[in-house]
């Protein structure tokens, strides 16, 4: 029986696991912390702009499970805020238990609180097994590196403002490990300007109960609040240091944009010093939820693996990559999409079949190819998401962006017919 080993239980890893388990392969998913979803636990915005299109494409390709869970925990539909249209807001914290149940039901072999520390690679060309921090060895036929690109502490310290005790909990569960780098393939490091590497996560969370009642009621009703920032505190620099270029618009500098994601309130700023925050009406008693520091956030995009458009890591026969590990991608849909392809191709590889490259007539194939092309040309600064920034512009320009379900279904079905006869 084929044995697939997936490292990292974020959206990407979970998506790979679901896809790979649809065959009769044995699927092992290893996560260092005690919960799934990784950075995704701090997410909550989806279907905004081109993410709508990508989500529909993925549904028609047959990867519905995780998307349906997101639908189930969606609290606000069709919300608009500056530069973003028809967004859905969901609560990732209530999605986690559901995803875990789904994976268990599908017989994915979950190893929680297990951190991969090293790989065994006898001939340096393929991976034979991985070694956990307690020295357990897990062998496999094919591996997927879905360890993300956030942290670890040393990076957040060197390129950020120190560990902000974010959702990943490096001090408790140990640091992220780049599996591809352990196997001898050098990571590509994202930059934000000449000297600085990586980028700050672009949002943080407030405890909902710490907003005043009036503000909270308004937020829960509309899903969004746009609060002007006092002039003296406007800091446009924040826009440049953010991972999420789709939220790098001037409106996000001048205003505090709050979104209702259920358990917590999502604040569209990488960080916001608490004293300044409390100057704003209604936020006099505001408290940060995650990360727990009000002046820092996690650093991301320091660990992208070189790969081809089938998401196979270059230089290794049996390692695939997904999520932020596979590109300078931002977002859950982006992670689910790449997770799907990596899971699919891992199985194809193990069976000795041809690897799938999703055609560029679909946005999900196009983003994978376009990102790769830009990175190969040496651009390590841009981030890619269906929801904004340079990639959404491209989607619009090339006619890939649409909310017309029939159109999306037709083009997806055509691809299915061509590729999977």
């Amino acid at each position, binding site marked *: 029986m084929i044995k697939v080993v997936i490292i990292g239980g974020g959206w990407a890893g979970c998506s790979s696991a679901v896809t790979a388990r649809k065959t009769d392969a044995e699927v092992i998913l290893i996560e260092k912390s005690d919960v799934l979803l990784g950075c995704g636990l701090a997410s909550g915005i989806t279907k905004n702009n081109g993410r709508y299109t990508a989500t529909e494409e993925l549904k028609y390709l047959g990867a519905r499970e995780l998307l349906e869970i997101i639908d189930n925990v969606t609290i606000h539909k069709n919300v608009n805020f500056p530069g973003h249209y028809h967004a859905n807001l969901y609560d990732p914290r209530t999605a986690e238990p559901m995803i875990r149940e789904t994976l268990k039901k599908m017989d994915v072999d979950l190893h929680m609180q297990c*951190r991969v520390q090293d790989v065994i690679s006898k001939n340096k060309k393929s991976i034979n097994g991985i070694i956990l921090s307690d*020295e357990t060895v897990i062998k496999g036929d094919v591996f997927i590196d879905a360890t993300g690109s956030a942290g670890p502490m*040393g*990076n957040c310290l*060197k390129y950020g403002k120190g*560990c902000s005790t974010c959702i990943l909990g*490096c001090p408790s569960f140990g*640091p992220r490990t780049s599996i591809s780098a352990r196997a001898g393939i050098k990571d590509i490091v994202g930059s934000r300007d000449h000297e600085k590497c990586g980028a700050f996560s672009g949002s943080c969370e407030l405890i909902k109960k710490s907003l005043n009642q009036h503000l909270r009621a308004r937020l829960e009703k509309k899903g969004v609040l746009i609060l002007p920032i006092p002039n003296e505190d406007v800091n446009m620099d924040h826009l440049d240091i953010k991972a999420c270029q789709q939220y790098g618009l001037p409106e996000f500098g001048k205003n505090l944009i709050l979104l209702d994601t259920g358990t917590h309130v999502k604040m569209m700023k990488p960080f916001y010093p608490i004293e300044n925050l409390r100057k704003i009406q209604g936020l006099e008693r505001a408290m940060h939820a995650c990360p727990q520091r009000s002046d820092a956030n996690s650093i991301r995009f*320091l660990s992208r693996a070189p790969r081809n458009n089938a998401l196979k890591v270059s230089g290794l026969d049996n390692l695939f990559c997904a999520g932020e590990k596979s590109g300078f991608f931002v977002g859950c849909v982006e992670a689910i999409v790449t997770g799907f392809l990596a899971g699919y191709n891992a199985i194809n590889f193990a069976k000795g079949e041809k690897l799938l490259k999703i055609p560029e007539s679909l946005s999900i194939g196009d983003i994978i190819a376009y990102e790769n092309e830009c990175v190969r040309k040496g651009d390590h600064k841009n981030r890619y998401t269906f929801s904004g920034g340079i990639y959404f512009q491209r989607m619009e320009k090339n006619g890939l962006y649409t909310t017309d379900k029939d159109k999306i279904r037709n083009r997806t079905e055509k691809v299915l017919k061509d590729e999977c006869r």
Partner: protein
Amino acid sequence: MITECIDASSDYCPCYLAEVEECLSCSLLNGEKTCNCTWTGTCKFNEFLWAGKQVESHRKTILCKILEKKMEENLLILTLKVPHKTAVNLKEPGSYIFIRTCLKPSFFDLPLAVMCANEIEDYIIVTVDIKGPKTKALQQNQNVVYLRYPYYNGIFGLKQLKKTFNSNCLVILGGIAQASGVMLIDKLIENKNNIVLLIDRSYPFFIKKYIADDVKIYKKNLSNREGEKFLQDILFSFNIDFIYIGGCGKLQENVLHLLKSHQYPARLTLSNNNRLCCGEGICGSCEITIKGQRLRTCKEQFNVDDDYD
């Protein structure tokens, strides 16, 4: 190959190596661009920045009283009074100290395995094979010596040792390195292991009185055919799954060769026989190369099973 710095996350971490971007554990403190650590429970980079980018505490040299001094053939056995905390710290297999006569400068420092540590009466016992300038100088008639401690990397494969419970263990000792076997055997007994002790007869068996009575002891000359045959019989008849070789390089080589030729699978640990000078990863005298990777053996642990050829 992942190696581990024995001092990582200890009281003496980060050390001077961090100041010069040579840390053996943290990639950022080793001049690399990104963090790529194996995690020993703390972030050394964080500690280093909070300490103001300098070493906060390093090991000091202290004057210690000699409680007892004995010569047995060519061996000098010293019982040394140490602070209570030191006796506790040094009661670990693999512990060693640097010692020198109080009459000579620091380049007389020599490393010695701690043979016994007594944390009730606060003393340690070490054995010196009188050989060259450093050891000869120790014979001078003084009742105090300089000590620098604690150091821990006297044995490779300490992780393997700590994981060994209820197993059949073969401890092979010979030469001056047998001193390192005493606390190792204590540890194995504590962890309810069954021990077979094999002593190389070509050297005085000076640790005899420190070994528990119920340990099975065999004495053989291990450098000939017969010894080899004997070793082979022991391996198979006792179904050995853990082996410690505390002896000179030649002895280690012979045993490793034998294990290899039989493809005998066992957890392996070895005494650190390299020439140590500073113990701090600075001077480089202890450096060896394994699979193309350079190791400062005064500080670095590696997995003997798959890394030693």
